């Protein structure tokens, strides 16, 4: 029982560590999207689509971490 609790806790900690990088990355992407939209509002739609694609690429890492908590 003791070791199961430790493993579960480690999973959560590992997932938390795994989200740090993608969190910063998505934040930067959102920053770029906002600044770009403020400078050129007519490109808003295009910028938002590109932002979603970039965020999806960064988010992939966090999602892999989420899946690993199920696997192990």
């Amino acid at each position: 029982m003791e070791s199961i609790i430790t493993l579960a806790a480690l999973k959560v900690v590992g997932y938390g560590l795994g989200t740090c990088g993608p969190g910063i990355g998505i934040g930067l992407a959102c920053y770029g999207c906002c600044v770009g939209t403020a400078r050129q509002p007519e490109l808003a739609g295009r910028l938002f689509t590109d932002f979603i694609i970039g965020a999806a690429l960064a988010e992939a890492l966090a999602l892999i971490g989420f899946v690993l908590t199920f696997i192990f």
Partner: protein
Amino acid sequence: MSPLEMLTTPGENGMNLLDELRHSFDSQFVISFGGTGLTQYILWMLITATLTVVVVLVGARKDSLIPTNKFAHTIEFLYHNICGDMGTSAIGKGYQRHMTLIATFFFFILVSNFVGLIPGCKTPTGSLSVTWALSTVSFFYFNYQGIKARGGWGYIKSIAPAGLPVVMVPIIWFFELISLVLRWLTLAVRLYGNMFAGHMVLGIFSLMTYVFVAGAIQQMNLILGLPAIAWMALLIVMYALETLVAFLQAYVFAVLSASYVGLATSEH
């Protein structure tokens, strides 16, 4: 018994409240015949699919040149919006062929996410099997379209971006291949993770509200019930956030499917 002890004390069936909440997210057969059956998620998926077809078809039937019907106009507005956002800016030329699938994804996921927000209903996208099926359809569709547009060998070559130095091509190609296959996983897990985690948070907040209200009633002590107000307020705020997430995840799934199709078919 203090409110927080109620959370971890086992009930008659040996499960405490948190276990029961966790258990309610597991797939269980609601209708079973023989060894097989329908889990609650699949049942709600069938209901949602029917609902989507009815909503969109009624919207299309009532559609007219001068919009008079608010409901039909809403559906038309959504469809035009996704045609603009996902068609013209993510896929590009010749996007009309792909809009049937992309719009189906959008409306189906939108309706199923919103159905899950109604208390007592289950969201089909809260199950990994359903989102996995959706992402499989999307994955095979964009690969098929890519092979159709460029031919088999041309599609395999196009995985690495053009204009690289010759030495770098195999390495970059390998990494791009990994990221291509990971799209299959990420499309499914993003939708599932967002819906599952959101509903789990809502469940825990309502559980906390219940525990404090029940504790206050049991001990006839109003002061003890005060935290329930804060939990209830948090629950309402999270519910509003979940409504946003429900729309956003449908949008993200559709826009990513569209951009993958666009990446696979566009001329470089």
